[in-house]
C-alpha cells in the first residue's frame, strides 16, 4: 500500500474519530479506541494530535471549512437569494443524511460541550469559515434588495436554528418522512421569513 502523506493520515484519523464520537459519544471514546479502529498505535496517533481536546478543535475547524467551502460555492453562483436559500438547505440536509457525523458533531458535541472548546476555540474562531460565508450570503441578500435588513444574529438564528432543529429531529428518529422531503417547504418558509 502506498504511504499516505501526513495530511491524508490526519484526515483519516479525523474521519474515524467523527464516526466513533457520533456512534458512541464524545466522552466514551478514548484516543486508544480511535487508534485501535485505525490499526495504529496510540503513540503514533499522538504524533498527529497531542490530546483529545486538540483533536476535538481540529474537527470543528475541519467541519466548518468543509461546510464553508460548499456555501462559498453557492454564494459565488449567479442566482437569486431565494435560489441560494434552497441550495443551502439542500446541501445541509444532504450532508446531514449522507455524513450525519459532521452535523451531529457540530450540534451534539461542539454546541453542547463548550468546556471542551474553551481554550483556543472561543467565539467564532473555530467556526469562522462557515459563519463568514453565511454572513456574506445575508449581506449580499440585503444588498441586492431581496432580504430585509436586520441584525445578523436574528436572521442567522432563524436560518441555522431551523436547519439544526430539523436535523436534530431526524437524528432522534422523529421525522415521519425522509429529511429531503422537507426541502421545498423549509426553503420557502425561510425565504418568506427573511424577504424584504
Amino acid at each position: 500500500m502506498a504511504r499516505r502523506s501526513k495530511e491524508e493520515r490526519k484526515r483519516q484519523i479525523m474521519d474515524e474519530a467523527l464516526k466513533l464520537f457520533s456512534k458512541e459519544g464524545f466522552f466514551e471514546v478514548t484516543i486508544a479506541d480511535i487508534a485501535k479502529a485505525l490499526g495504529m498505535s496510540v503513540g503514533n496517533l499522538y504524533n498527529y494530535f497531542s490530546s483529545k481536546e486538540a483533536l476535538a478543535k481540529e474537527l470543528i475547524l475541519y467541519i466548518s471549512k468543509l461546510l464553508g467551502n460548499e456555501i462559498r460555492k453557492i454564494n459565488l453562483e449567479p442566482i437569486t437569494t431565494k435560489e441560494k436559500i434552497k441550495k443551502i438547505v439542500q446541501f445541509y440536509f444532504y450532508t446531514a443524511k449522507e455524513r450525519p457525523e459532521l452535523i451531529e458533531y457540530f450540534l451534539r458535541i461542539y454546541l453542547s460541550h463548550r468546556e471542551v472548546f474553551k481554550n483556543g476555540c472561543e467565539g467564532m474562531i473555530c467556526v469562522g469559515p462557515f459563519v463568514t460565508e453565511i454572513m456574506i450570503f445575508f449581506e449580499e441578500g440585503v444588498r441586492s434588495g431581496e432580504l430585509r435588513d436586520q441584525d445578523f444574529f436574528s436572521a442567522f438564528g432563524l436560518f441555522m436554528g431551523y436547519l439544526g432543529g430539523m436535523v436534530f429531529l431526524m437524528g432522534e428518529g422523529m421525522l415521519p418522512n425522509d429529511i429531503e422531503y422537507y426541502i421545498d417547504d423549509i426553503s420557502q418558509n425561510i425565504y418568506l421569513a427573511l424577504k424584504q
Partner: protein
Amino acid sequence: MRVFWLQGVTCNGNSHSFINLSSLPTLLQSCTFVYHPLLDSLPFYEAIEADFDILVVEGGIKKGWHRGGLEFEKLFLDLANKAKRVIAVGSCAVYGGIFREYDESISGVLFEKDQKSRYFDELQSKTINIPGCPAHPEWIHYALVCYKPLLDEFYRPKEIYAYTVHAGCVRNEYFEWKVDAKSFGLKEGCLFYEQGCQAPYTHGSCNKILWNETASKTRVGTPCFGCTEPDFIQRDLFCTKTFMSIPAKMPLGVPKRAYLTLTGVAKSFRIERLSKRLIDED
C-alpha cells in the same frame, strides 16, 4: 512665484483654511498673491490683467454664472490657460462638491464627481487636485511649492493621499479588536462600526498631518466624512450603513471575506483594557 486665487461657487472654507497655515509669513516671502480674497493683493480687475505662475481654483465652476460682470467659465479658462500650473483646492473645485448636489451644471476643474469634466483634456497636464472640505493648509502649501508631485487616478498628490485617514488614528487599537464607540464624542472605541466613520476607505493624511497641529476629526470623536473622495457628500454621516450588521463599505482594498474572517476572530475575545474608560473617573 506669483499666484492668482480664483473663487468659484464656494463657501470660502479653503481660503480660511489656508490662512491658518502656520508658515504663511515664510511662504509669503517667496510667494506673491496677485489676487486672493483675504490676503493683501491687487484689485480684482487689475489682477486679471497681471502675469502669474499658478492659478488656485477654490469652488465649483458654473457656466453662465457671472462674477463682477464677467462670465465665470470664460474667466476661469482665460486664467487657467495663462497659468503655468493650476491647483484645484477643496472638493468643490476638484469634483464639483456639495454645490453640485443641488445644481448638476456645477463642475470641478478636472472632474464631475468621478467622471472627467469638459475641461479635463485641456487642463489635465498642468493641474493638481487637493480635495478636502476644506483642504488642509499644509496640503495647499505642499501643492504650491512642490513642482511635479506623483499623482493618483484623481490627480491627487500621493505624498498626501496615498494614506487613508485611518492611518495614524489613535483609535486603531479599538478597530483591531472591533470595539465600537458607544456614542459620538467618546475617547474610547472605533467609529467605523456604528458612528459612520469613513476613514478606512478615505484617502488623506488627516491623522498624519494634524489639523491646527493638534487633532483630527477621529481623534476628537467625530467620524471621518470622506471629504476627499468623489462621492462626497453622502447622507447620514453619523451612522454606518450596514447590510445585516455588516458594514456596506470595506476598508480600502480589503476583500469582504478577509475582513469578516478577521472580525470574527477579533470579536471572539474580550480585551478587558479596551472595554474600560481610558481615564477612569471613579
